[in-house]
């Protein structure tokens, strides 16, 4: 097992290197650069050139790349072009917000999506199945910003039940330990902060969870359907096992592999930036920040974030592969 993990980590190195080269090249080859983004309407060839020189953007591309990689290897992600703020600090400030929202959304979509998928699989073509699958189709299709704004106007404005701006009410603060407000609030014994953070989490979580919930429900359903047609299920029933036992130990356990895969992928997708949800709910995460940074051609931010996202995917993939061994005893590493 340890050997397998070590091998996977070594294999990840060329992947990360490849990602870094690719992103660097793509970013620098598309037209526009941070200078025009900063100067805006004031950009003229002369002041663009002068600023490019000051920022080191007129050095050969390979030289810029190696300067950047050299700094990264020394643990320095560089500073933002606009504002000259350390990128590492900015990531540390924002990433926990995205992690918290992603985990909440994954939690919600899993604990709702998996049971719905199982029920639909068992009760194929029943009313509840049709309803669930219609809901899943709806969940996949509804644009995130439409759903988000609907929730805001209904629960935020009309009913006034839930907040919808950011992670905390102005004036409420939670001592920072992990950056995840819910956990920090528990660790520091701050019930008011916990309640406030939880309330702020509700609407964005529902918005963000909808798509992955729908996908998880559909995948679980089809995996269940496939397993339920197997001979060993008939055998299990024939030998007189109870319905629940057949479903949970024989059917669901064997249907788990694709479900775990899709849950892992969903987490990766959620973590790599829920741009729209973060935008609508003013959630101070990395998604919108990365999007804005691409528009502003803030190279150090985009490059660092891409590496981080690549790492996240590698770790999640590894975790999913390891889970396979737990779920399926035939898989050994």
């Amino acid at each position: 097992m340890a050997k397998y993990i070590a091998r996977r980590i070594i294999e990840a190195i060329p992947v990360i290197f490849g990602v870094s080269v690719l992103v660097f090249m793509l970013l620098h080859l598309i037209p526009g650069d941070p200078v025009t983004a900063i100067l805006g309407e004031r950009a003229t060839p002369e002041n663009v050139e002068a600023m490019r020189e000051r920022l080191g953007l007129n050095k050969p591309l390979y030289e810029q790349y190696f300067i950047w990689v050299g700094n990264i290897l020394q643990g320095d992600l560089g500073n933002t072009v606009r504002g000259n703020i350390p990128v590492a600090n900015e990531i540390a400030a924002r990433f926990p917000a995205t992690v918290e929202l992603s985990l909440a959304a994954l939690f919600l979509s899993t604990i709702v999506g998996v049971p719905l998928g199982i029920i639909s699989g068992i009760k194929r073509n029943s009313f509840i199945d049709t309803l669930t699958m219609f809901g899943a189709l709806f969940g996949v299709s509804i644009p995130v910003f439409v759903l988000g704004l609907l929730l805001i106007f209904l629960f935020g404005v009309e009913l006034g039940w839930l907040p919808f701006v950011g992670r905390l009410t102005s004036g409420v603060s939670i001592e920072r330990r992990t950056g995840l407000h819910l956990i920090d609030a528990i660790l520091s014994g701050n019930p008011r902060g916990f309640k406030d953070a939880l309330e702020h989490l509700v609407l964005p979580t529902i918005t963000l969870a909808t798509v992955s919930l729908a996908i998880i429900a559909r995948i679980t359903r089809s995996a269940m359907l496939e397993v339920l047609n197997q001979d060993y299920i008939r055998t299990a029933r024939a030998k007189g096992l109870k319905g629940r036992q057949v479903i949970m130990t024989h059917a669901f356990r064997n249907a788990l592999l694709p479900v775990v895969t899709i849950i892992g992928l969903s987490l990766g997708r959620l973590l790599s930036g829920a741009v729209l949800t973060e935008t609508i709910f003013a959630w101070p995460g990395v998604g919108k920040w990365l999007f804005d940074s691409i528009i502003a051609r803030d190279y150090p931010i985009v490059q660092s974030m891409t590496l981080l996202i690549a790492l996240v995917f590698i770790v999640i993939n590894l975790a999913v592969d390891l889970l396979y061994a737990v779920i399926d005893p035939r898989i050994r590493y």
Partner: protein
Amino acid sequence: MRKWFALVVVLALLVPLAPGNVSVSSRVSAQGNTFTFGEFGNAVALDPAIVTDGISFRVTVQGCEALLFFDGSTTNPIPGLAESWTASEDGTVWTFKLREGVTFHDGTPFNAEAVVYNFERWRFTDHPTHFPEQIFEYYAYMWGGLDDDSIITSVEATGEYEVTFTLSSPYGSMLNTLAMPMFAISSPAAIEAAGPAYGTPAVGYSCTGPYKFVEWVSDDHITLTRNEDYWGEIPGNVDTIIFRVIPNAAARFAALQAGEIDAFEQPNVEDLPAIEAGENTYILMRDPLNVFYLAFNYRIQEFRDVRVRRAISMAINRQEIVDAFYPPGAVVAKTMVPPSLWGYNPDVPAVEYDPEGARALLAEAGYPNGFSEVTLLGVDENNMVTDEVVDVIPLTLYYMPVQRPYNPDGLGIGEAMASYLSQIGLNATLNQVGDWSAYLDARSRGELLGLYQLGWTGDNGDPDNFLGYFYTNQPKPSEGYYYNPEVDQLLRQARTMTDQAEREPIYQLVEQMQHDEVARLYIAHSGVPLAFSSRVSGYVTNPLATEHFKFVSVN
């Protein structure tokens, strides 16, 4: 079995809701009178000298003061940290008497040395706190350049509370430029202590103004608190200012309705009636200090004929565009200079919408059936357009890929313009190049080969900032190779004069000349709406957007 699943589902739905049900409007703040402004983005930095964006300036203006201020809702400079000033006869030596008894937020005294320190830091690239990775763009842009290019050749402390500026040549907009928010004076001790971190979220700013920096959580909020030691008066009653980032305009409106914020800038045009009609909300308009235009690239042979340019100008219904796309308060533009600014020429006539006349002019110019392809000419090393035919390309109308205060809908307006043009037989292809950075890049290189949209927002309330910036040092690729040496010469002359009464007729003459030659198509000047909760009073809008929240009261 069924019960078990149902239970799980129900629990799953209930868990996040469990402690909910708190009325948003009942949330009270423990920080005294709080004024919360909804921002559409994160500030870039809070060191006013190194930023260029409106969001950052809206914060720094509350705490960082310059030698002069802009007076209320005007662009007239009035005493700020400088109480009075005198200029030498030839306008190259300016002496400022500074306010005494002012301290920075860090407790250190404000004096002539501090002013000298700031100006030298901005100007000299080898100054110990002019960090190479920081961009002192506005100094370079407003004062002719850094180091030896600067038209300020020295800033000296000629007394404890007196500074003397020496200029290489007279500069007509000296006072207006000194009042700009990027030339606010920071505490030298704070800059030295923080180094490159001055102005970052961890440090904030330390200046002399009515509100002190408290905290900045990136992409979430910035908090300021009332400076109890402020040297001047704070007419409003706000103790705490919070800038909350809410990127989506519809969500900002919802936040205003729900009482989460008290004000925000630039609501969606379609939300304006609802805000206006709302019981607890209202709108204020900021006077237009911008211009939206459609420029010609003079490398297109057809556009070098004034009859073609005039035909295009007559074919476009500016009033319809303003009515359809702009917020109330916007006006059709006749010149580059907005009507509220001195130097505006009220005698320049409006261009009449006249497609018939436009068709006749086109026929006279030799295009009775219009055209959909154009001829591209070459340029020489001095950026002069030559007679050499380089290519034949489709007639293209470039539209802006972003919203700006002067352009609410680049594509929509582009489509309208293309349809007007098609009525006189000009079939233009619409193109947005890429995103904003790519668009600006192509524009600065003169590569928008056709008609292109762009605009300008005033920096300091001086007409030189509109006309001089664009039309001196011609021809240049960034201005579509426009070339009129007389305009160039007049604008340079006006820039070095210090008497406004003498400068004004020169700008007015240039505007008339540009109208006569149809230099480019000026389309609109747009005001900027701001939305408020009715608990807010006293907000004074300013065309430069440098609005001081010290006038604001909340109840």
